């Protein structure tokens, strides 16, 4: 098996699915000759031509609306939103139209579309190149939301998303693109959407996370392991539909739950998981469910000190774990 990073895994998935199915095509800003600003689509235009790797005008609403219309004709579009921060002009097409198309036509118009969204902070992106946007999609029936943390998961889940007949918002954490490396099998594989993965087994505390934060959680778990705190780390991988079973089974085993995400704490994915634990694992809980999330300021600011203040990190997570363990 070759060791690859996340962006290479994304590119491999795109290439393989475009080879596999001529209905798959990419559209977005700078995805052609430039190969995407993160090079996710590097050289794909050479292999598939400009009719299947379409450089669009700088206009996100139409990127999404055009993708949706093409999906109505049986294509499998993969619109790329250059940065999650630029997705807002497309929100009517995504939340208003795409998410409701299947329901609003009583099933006549499924939407086989994968919206690739580089997201997240910790990269000195400031207010408009760092945003976490997952909660809004997580809240929206009709969309699926995938947020992998590793190259292996990114490739397997992206291939499944492209083959899915429902719209999938595919969130790629920018900081993982080149930072996170892992082995990719030579042979073809896919991973099922809607299944969490236990990235580290443990007995004392369950930590639920996804994306970049998953890696910080794993580091924090190692940091406290020597203190006799045995942490189980659950990687959601898919936010919607949520793998309730894996989360609940882990919580029932450990009795303690910490949720870590970079997105704002209020009304976030963590709030839903806390409610899930309260609803369905109440009698198993030995400590208050805790969230370690981005604070309720609009985004992580630009200056290093300000960004650090915002971001959850390994030390903060380790502290939260110690507090849980001591309860």
């Amino acid at each position, binding site marked *: 098996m070759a060791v690859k990073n996340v962006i290479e895994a994304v590119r491999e998935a795109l290439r393989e699915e475009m080879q596999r199915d001529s209905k798959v*095509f990419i559209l977005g800003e700078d995805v052609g000759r430039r190969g995407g600003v993160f090079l996710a689509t590097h050289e794909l235009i050479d292999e598939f031509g400009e*009719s*299947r790797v379409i450089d*669009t*005008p700088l*206009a996100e*609403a*139409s990127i*999404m*609306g*055009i*993708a*949706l*219309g*093409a*999906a*109505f*004709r*049986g*294509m499998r*579009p993969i619109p790329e939103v250059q940065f999650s921060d630029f997705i807002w*002009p497309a929100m*009517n*097409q995504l939340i*208003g*139209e795409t998410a*409701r*198309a*299947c*329901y*609003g*036509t*009583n*099933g*006549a*118009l*499924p*939407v*086989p579309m994968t919206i690739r969204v580089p997201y997240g902070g910790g990269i000195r992106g400031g207010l408009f190149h760092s945003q976490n946007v997952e909660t809004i999609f997580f809240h929206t*029936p*009709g969309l*699926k939301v995938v947020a992998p943390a590793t190259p292996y998961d990114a490739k397997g889940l992206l291939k499944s998303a492209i083959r*899915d*007949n*429902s719209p999938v918002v595919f969130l790629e954490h920018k900081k993982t693109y080149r930072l996170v490396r892992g082995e990719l099998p030579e042979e073809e594989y896919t991973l099922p959407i809607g299944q969490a993965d236990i990235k580290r087994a443990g007995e004392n505390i369950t930590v639920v996370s996804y994306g970049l934060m998953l890696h910080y959680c794993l580091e924090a778990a190692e940091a406290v392991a020597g203190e006799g705190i045995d942490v189980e780390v659950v990687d959601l991988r898919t936010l919607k539909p949520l793998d309730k079973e894996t989360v609940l089974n882990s919580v029932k085993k450990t009795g303690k739950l910490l949720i870590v995400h970079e997105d704002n704490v209020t009304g976030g994915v963590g709030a839903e998981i806390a409610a899930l634990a309260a609803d369905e694992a109440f009698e198993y809980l030995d400590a208050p469910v805790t969230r370690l999330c981005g604070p309720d300021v609009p985004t992580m600011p630009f200056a290093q000190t300000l960004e650090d203040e915002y971001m959850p990190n390994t030390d903060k997570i380790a502290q939260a774990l110690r507090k849980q363990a001591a309860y």
Partner: protein
Amino acid sequence: MPRKKTTRSNGTEDSEVAIAQSLEGLPEGLTTGDLVDSYTNMIMVRTMDERIWALNRQGKVPIAASCQGHEAAQLGSLLAAQKDGRCFLFPYYRDLGLKMAAGLTPTQVMLSFMGKEGEPYSNARQFPLQGADLEHNIIQISNVVGAGLTQAVGYALACKMQDDDTVVLTYFGDGASSQGEAHEAMNFAGVHQLPVIFVCENNHYAISVPQSRQMATDDLASRAQGYGFPGFTVDGMDIVRCYEATREAISHARTQGPVLLEMQVERLMPHTTDDDHLRYRTQEELDSANQRDPVVNFGSDLLARGIITQEKFEAIKAEALQAINEATDVADAANPPDPSTMWGRVYSE
């Protein structure tokens, strides 16, 4: 029959998309039989339109947007699309006439307005006649104005990618023309020379806001120049003009790329059953608009030219009334959707 010239946006007559101005008879592909059929459809649509308004006042139809005044534009362009046979339509919320004449029975339409089981577009999940009628090549998934334009462009892009010669017609009002997506859709269609026709049914009102407060120009068609394709203004109260212009536009779209067709119409009724247009329009203005009623004038024209007899004229109205009466009774007695049908099909199944 009144023949207003179709003009290019710069005011000159177009030679490429020439409309057969000099022809004494009917334009290419159109027979007197078509005119009678279209008039029959128009009367059916008008009778339905009037009935659903009355049913709204009786509490049986929650909401309706009337197409009165738009019938010639909708049925003229539809006729061209149907005769072509390779068109796909993205109408908007005021296109009752288009959607009905595309092939729905009066009963299906009435089920839709009453929100009953068997509603053809979404099984009554959505507002009347909103969702998709794929059997008749129609998609309109929302009533966020302008949103359908980019979708129509995407549909046309897919047709081109699939080497399919379908032409897409997307309909919208002058109100939607202010949306950013209207610009984005036309811009992208121009760049890629897509087989799409932007049909603006310009009734000069965005609910209550007159055209003068929506745009600084007298017409919409002139915008097409900025996107690199032709735009035309057509008398939308004249079904033959609308047919001709759409037929030529289809031919242009298939071989050369997009066209913007502005059909100038009148909105004879309030915006919807929940609106009172006398709050922002004068009675004099409405009286003047009613003088241009496309259904009344088309009927008078057919009679004057001897294309239909007075007897046929009366029979068409009587048959429409009977059909709408029957549809009303059937839909009124029909069951609403079972509550369990609220569930499911949120995702592809």
